[in-house]
């Protein structure tokens, strides 16, 4: 018999665990989204979400755990509801708002959000609970009502819709795009083939239209795995995405083709037709391979003289006698630092090419996460007297991962924080555990990043416009970090306001049985 909360928690389960599981099941059965955030950690990170939340938002739990809920707003930030939420979190009161949110696929939904604080005995707020309801339909009905006054406009809209609905419109698009397209009926007979298809495969319309897909050419598309995917399209609406076919085609020889197939959708209605898009990626692949080879040869060639220089510098450092001037020694040390920097740049360039071709190699072993972070910060502190690094929190976790690559990530975030906050002196690093994840946040009070640029900073070679000329860099650090974190099944993201500073955070899953301590 447990006496937890005077037995109020004793639903009917045998033990506390039984009752707890029952409650979790109840939460998952709810049709409202439910979110719990930890108010004891900076910026209220999500520590729990139920199934309905995943369904409403389209995000998986693993993608959003540890994030602040504002990612749901995408770049729609000028909403009065946000201010209200922010005020209520500050004073610790509950509130009900309607806010425009966006699903993972970009679709807008109206979120009726009830948010309330959870307090402990002393009145201190430990958590916030958010309950989300998708009220898009209601909102839409309200809006439709308003719109009906505008009958004229609607009629015009209807007419264009009619036009668009016509098969003629579809086929005119199909004929003009510069991609090979086939439209198929449910039995995979070709209804139409566009000009680009006929040109690419050097075939005539008679050889193609009204023929069965698998009979075309020398039966090039008659591939069991492809067939399996194609038959699922109409019943499930699941597209075939980026299916590669390498084949010796009649007339055109050995080629690598990329296939994408979708169910045809017009004005929100599915038709019993399949659109098959075929792209010749033979040349592109070859160019990628050559670029890869080039980069690895170039980096080898660049490193060879660098090795000689570094060797001589190290020899000189040893030869310097104790009487040698201090200026001579520090000059030599500086040369050594810049040679290392050059070497890192070369390695980074090679990393980018590796990642693009999917050849990044990770060697995962368990390691003490907090020790790794501590040592990395310490080393950075030694070489960066201009800024002060302040570490708070802990994770007490062993992480199964590639330690040297994760050090690279932390180094990158720290050096960006320093580089892009020349006027401010402090960098804050916060460690925490969120559910079965560790979370690291690096906060600076520097330039900050506008909402439009926030998504792009993780793309390779992207650099914020007004930063380009003032700060050195190649715009690949964050791209590499993002790929490394993704390869560890974690997430990397940024919360920032232009002119105020940035917080770059990442999560990493704690492997099973790897957590020690609390």
């Amino acid at each position, binding site marked *: 018999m447990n006496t937890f909360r005077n037995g109020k928690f004793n639903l009917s389960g045998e033990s506390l665990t039984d009752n707890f599981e029952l409650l979790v099941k109840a939460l998952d059965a709810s049709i409202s989204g439910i979110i719990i955030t930890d108010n004891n950690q900076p910026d209220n990170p999500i520590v729990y979400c139920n199934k309905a939340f995943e369904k409403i938002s389209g995000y998986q739990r693993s993608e959003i755990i540890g994030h602040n809920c504002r990612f749901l707003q995408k770049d729609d930030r000028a909403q009065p509801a946000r201010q209200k939420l922010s005020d209520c979190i500050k004073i610790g009161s509950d509130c009900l708002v309607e806010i425009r949110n966006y699903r993972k696929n970009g679709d807008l939904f109206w979120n009726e959000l009830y948010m309330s604080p959870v307090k402990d005995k002393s009145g201190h707020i430990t958590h916030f609970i958010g309950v989300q309801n998708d009220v898009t339909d209601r909102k839409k009905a309200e809006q439709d009502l308003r719109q009906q006054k505008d009958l004229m406009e609607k009629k015009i809209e209807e007419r264009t819709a009619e036009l668009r609905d016509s098969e003629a419109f579809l086929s005119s698009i199909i004929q003009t795009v510069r991609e090979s397209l086939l439209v198929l009926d449910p039995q995979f007979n070709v209804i139409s083939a566009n000009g680009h298809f006929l040109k690419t495969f050097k075939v005539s319309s008679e050889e193609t239209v009204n023929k069965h897909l698998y009979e075309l050419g020398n039966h090039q598309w008659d591939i069991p795995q492809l067939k399996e995917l194609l038959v699922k399209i109409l019943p499930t609406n699941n597209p075939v995405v980026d299916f590669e076919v390498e084949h010796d085609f009649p007339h055109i020889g050995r080629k690598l083709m990329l296939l994408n197939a979708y169910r045809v959708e017009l004005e929100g209605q599915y038709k019993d037709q399949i659109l098959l898009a075929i792209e010749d990626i033979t040349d592109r692949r070859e160019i990628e391979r050559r670029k890869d080879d080039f980069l*690895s040869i170039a*980096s*080898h060639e660049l*490193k*060879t*003289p*660098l*090795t*000689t*220089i*570094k*060797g*001589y510098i*190290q*020899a000189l450092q*040893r030869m310097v006698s104790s009487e040698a001037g201090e200026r001579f020694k520090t000059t030599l040390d500086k040369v050594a630092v810049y*040679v290392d920097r050059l*070497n890192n740049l070369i390695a980074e360039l*090679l990393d980018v090419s*590796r990642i693009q071709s999917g050849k990044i190699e990770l*060697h995962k072993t368990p390691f003490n996460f907090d020790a790794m972070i501590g040592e990395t910060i310490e080393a950075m502190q030694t070489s960066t007297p201009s800024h002060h690094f302040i570490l708070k929190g802990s994770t007490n976790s062993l992480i199964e991962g590639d330690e040297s690559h994760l050090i690279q990530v932390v180094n990158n975030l720290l050096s960006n924080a320093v580089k892009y906050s020349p006027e401010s002196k402090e960098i804050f690093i916060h460690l925490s555990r969120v559910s079965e994840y560790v979370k690291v946040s690096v906060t600076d009070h520097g330039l900050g990043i506008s909402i439009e640029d926030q998504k792009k900073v993780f793309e390779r070679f992207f650099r914020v416009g007004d930063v380009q000329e003032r700060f050195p860099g190649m715009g690949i650090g964050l791209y590499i970090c993002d790929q490394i974190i993704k390869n560890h099944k974690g997430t990397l993201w940024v919360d920032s306001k232009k002119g105020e500073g940035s917080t770059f955070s990442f999560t990493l899953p704690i492997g099973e049985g790897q957590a020690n301590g609390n």
Partner: protein
Amino acid sequence: MEIKKILVCDDDEGILDMLALILEETGHEILLENNSMNVLSIIETQSPDLILLDLWMPVISGDQLLKSIRANSDMHDLPVIVISASRDGRKIAQQAGASAYIAKPFDYQELIDSVDACLSGDITHMSNTI
């Protein structure tokens, strides 16, 4: 200290010169060779105690050479340190049977330590930790 013979093979003259300067400090006898084709015969005539070997070299690459050393019953125990700027160098060296691997550009002390360890027989094969 017993004076040993170290053979260094790298197709880049700059690297050879620099390694000669650094290895001089160890007090051992240093043989320099920029043509990998000559290495097997030098081993036979000079019987070095240790080889430092580059990977990417014209005609015979370092890993090919290393494989033939390991396949030859007269020399298969010879310690060989592979030293390379190739990104996959460590893996290639390990698969070919290197005693140790050093990435270019290298750290002075790491090189000296590795040479000492190989000459004293402490290291015979690369460990798996990368």
